[in-house]
C-alpha cells in the first residue's frame, strides 16, 4: 500500500473552483444549446473566478502561518492567497470585458473554459513550492493563453501572435527548465526551502541556473531584454485576452519571482538583487523609449506594461519586506489600470471595427465621458499621478530602492516616469484635446453598443485605481502580512 500524501483541499480550493468552472464551461460546448451557450459559459467562468476570489479571501484569513501542502509541493500562505485574489479579481473583470467581444461564436464556451483554466494555472503558479510545480503551472497557464490568443481562427493576427507567443514562450520556459535542472544539480533539491537549506553559495552551476531561472521568469513578466514578444502578442491577441495577459500573467510572474528569489536563493542575494535591478533598468529604458514612438494604442500599452514591470521589479530587487510590500501594493492598482485601459480599448475597437490608434481615439473622451474619464484616470495612474494608486505604488517602490541604498535606481525611476508622461499624456491629449470634427476619422454619433458588463468592469477598475490611493493603510497591511510569509533572512 502506498502511503498517500495528505491533500489539503482547502488550500487548493481556488485552483479547483476554477478548474471545475473550466470543465463545466467546456461541457457547455456540447450540452447547452447554441443560443445560450455563450451566456452560460461566461456565467460559469465568472462564478469560478468569484469563487476563487472568495476562497482566496478565506485562505488569507485562515493561513496566518504559511506551510507547504500536498507533500510540500504547494504553498498555503498569505502571499499565495493575496496573489490568488488579484488574479481572480482580474479574471472576473476580464470575463465581463470579454462578454461582448465581436468574435466568432462557435468557440464561445471553449473561450471561457480556457480563460478559467489559465486563471487556475496562475492561481497554482503563485503558490508553487518547488521547481517542478513551478514549471508545470507555468506551462499550464501559458498553453491556455497560447490557445486563447488564437481562439478566433479567422483572425490572422491572432494566429500569428499565438505562434509567436508559443515559440518565444516555449523558449523562455525551456530556459527556465534548464536553469531549474542546473539548480537541482547544484543543490540536489527541487523545493525552494530545500534549495535555500542546501546553502550553496557562489557555485558556478547554481549561479548559472539562477540566471536562467530569472531569465525564464522575466520572459513571462515581459521585462526587457526578454520582452520582444510582448508588443506583437499584445497587439495580435483579442483585447480581453491582452488585458488578462497584461494584468494577471504579470502579477503571477512577478509574485513568483519574488517568492523564488527570496525563498530559495537568500544566500545569493548579492547577485540577484543586482541582476533584477539591471533588468528593471532595461525595462524602464526600453519600455519607455519604445512606447514614445507607437501610434497603436495597444502597442503603446504593451510597451508601457514593460516599463511598469520595470518599476515593480525595483521592488523585488530591494530584497526587503518593504520591497515586497511595494511590489504587492503596486500590483493592485496596476492590474486594475491595465484591465481598465484595455477594456476601454476593447470598447473603442468594437465601436469602430478597426484597431485603435492615437488618431482614432480623438474626441473619444467627450463622446463617451464615462470611458474617457476612466481611461484618463488609468493613464494618470500609469504615469504615477496622485489620486491614483499608481502614485503610492511608485512612491513605495522608490522608498524600497532608497532603503536598499540604491538612490541611483530612484533617479532612474524618476527619469523614466518623466519620459512616460509624454506618451500617457499624449493619449489623454488625443482623447480630449483634439476636435473630432477636425479629424473626420472616427464615425461619430449613433449610440454605441450598450455594454453594461464592460462598463461595470471599467468602473470597478476606476474605483480600485482611485480607491487604492486613499485606502493605502488597509492594503499595505494586507500586503505586509502576505510578504511576511516569506522567510526574510534579516
Amino acid at each position: 500500500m502506498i502511503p498517500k500524501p495528505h491533500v489539503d483541499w482547502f488550500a487548493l480550493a481556488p485552483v479547483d473552483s476554477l478548474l471545475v468552472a473550466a470543465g463545466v464551461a467546456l461541457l457547455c460546448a456540447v450540452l447547452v444549446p447554441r443560443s445560450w451557450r455563450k451566456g452560460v459559459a461566461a456565467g460559469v467562468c465568472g462564478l469560478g473566478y468569484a469563487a476563487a476570489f472568495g476562497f482566496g479571501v478565506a485562505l488569507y484569513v485562515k493561513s496566518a502561518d504559511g506551510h507547504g501542502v500536498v507533500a510540500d509541493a504547494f504553498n498555503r500562505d498569505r502571499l499565495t492567497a493575496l496573489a490568488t485574489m488579484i488574479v481572480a479579481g482580474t479574471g472576473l473583470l476580464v470575463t465581463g470585458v470579454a462578454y461582448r467581444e465581436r468574435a466568432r461564436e462557435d468557440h464561445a464556451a471553449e473561450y471561457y473554459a480556457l480563460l478559467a483554466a489559465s486563471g487556475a494555472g496562475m492561481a497554482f503558479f503563485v503558490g508553487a513550492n518547488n521547481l517542478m510545480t513551478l514549471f508545470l503551472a507555468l506551462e499550464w497557464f501559458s498553453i491556455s493563453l497560447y490557445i486563447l490568443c488564437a481562439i478566433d481562427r479567422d483572425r490572422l493576427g491572432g494566429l500569428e501572435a499565438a505562434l509567436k507567443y508559443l515559440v518565444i514562450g516555449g523558449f523562455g520556459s525551456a530556459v527556465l527548465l534548464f536553469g531549474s535542472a542546473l539548480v537541482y544539480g547544484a543543490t540536489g533539491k527541487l523545493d525552494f526551502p530545500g534549495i535555500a537549506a542546501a546553502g550553496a553559495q557562489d557555485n558556478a552551476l547554481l549561479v548559472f541556473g539562477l540566471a536562467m531561472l530569472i531569465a525564464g521568469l522575466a520572459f513571462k513578466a515581459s521585462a526587457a531584454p526578454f520582452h520582444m514578444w510582448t508588443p506583437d502578442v499584445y497587439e495580435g491577441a483579442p483585447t480581453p485576452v491582452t488585458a488578462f495577459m497584461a494584468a494577471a500573467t504579470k502579477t503571477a510572474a512577478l509574485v513568483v519571482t519574488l517568492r523564488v528569489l527570496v525563498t530559495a536563493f537568500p544566500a545569493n542575494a548579492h547577485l540577484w538583487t543586482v541582476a533584477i535591478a539591471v533588468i528593471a533598468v532595461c525595462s524602464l529604458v526600453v519600455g519607455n523609449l519604445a512606447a514614445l514612438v507607437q501610434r497603436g494604442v495597444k502597442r503603446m500599452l504593451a510597451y508601457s506594461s514593460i516599463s511598469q514591470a520595470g518599476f515593480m521589479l525595483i521592488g523585488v530587487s530591494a530584497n526587503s519586506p518593504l520591497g515586497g510590500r511595494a511590489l504587492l501594493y503596486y500590483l493592485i492598482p496596476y492590474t486594475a489600470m491595465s484591465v481598465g485601459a484595455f477594456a476601454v480599448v476593447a470598447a473603442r475597437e468594437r465601436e469602430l471595427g478597426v484597431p485603435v490608434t492615437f488618431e482614432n481615439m480623438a474626441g473619444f473622451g467627450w463622446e463617451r465621458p464615462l470611458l474617457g474619464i476612466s481611461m484618463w484616470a488609468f493613464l494618470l495612474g500609469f504615469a504615477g499621478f496622485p489620486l491614483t494608486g499608481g502614485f503610492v505604488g511608485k512612491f513605495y517602490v522608490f522608498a524600497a530602492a532608497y532603503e536598499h541604498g540604491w538612490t541611483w535606481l530612484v533617479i532612474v525611476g524618476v527619469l523614466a516616469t518623466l519620459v512616460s508622461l509624454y506618451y500617457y499624456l499624449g493619449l489623454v491629449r488625443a482623447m480630449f484635446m483634439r476636435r473630432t470634427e477636425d479629424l473626420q476619422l472616427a464615425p461619430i454619433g449613433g449610440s454605441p453598443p450598450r455594454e453594461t458588463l464592460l462598463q461595470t468592469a471599467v468602473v470597478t477598475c476606476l474605483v480600485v485605481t482611485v480607491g487604492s490611493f486613499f485606502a493605502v493603510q488597509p492594503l499595505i497591511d494586507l500586503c505586509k502580512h502576505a510578504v511576511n510569509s516569506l522567510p526574510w533572512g534579516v
Partner: protein
Amino acid sequence: MIALLGPEISWYLAVAGFLFATGSLGVLLRRNPLIVLLSLEIMLNGANLALIGFSRNLGDGGGQIFALAVMAVAASEVVVGLGLVVALNRKRVTLDVDRLNTLRG
C-alpha cells in the same frame, strides 16, 4: 547497489548543454515554424538529459519525474504549436496571399 559506469556526469552535462544551445540557435535563427518547433524539442531534451543526469548523480528520483513531466509538457506544446501552424497555413491558403505580414516584427 549500482555504481555509475562509463563517463561521469560532467560529460552528460556537456552533451545536454550542447543540445540546449543548438536548439536555442535553431529557435532564434530558423524561420520555418515547423523547424522552430523541432528546435524547441531539442532544447527541452537537452534540459531533460541534464535533469536525468543530475537525478542519477544525486540518487534522487525527482529529476526523472521532472523529465517525464517535461515530456508531457513538450507534447502539449507540440500539439498546440502544430495546431497553430495548421490553422495559419489553412488561413493563408484561403486568403491566397503569398507573404502576409500583419505584425511588425
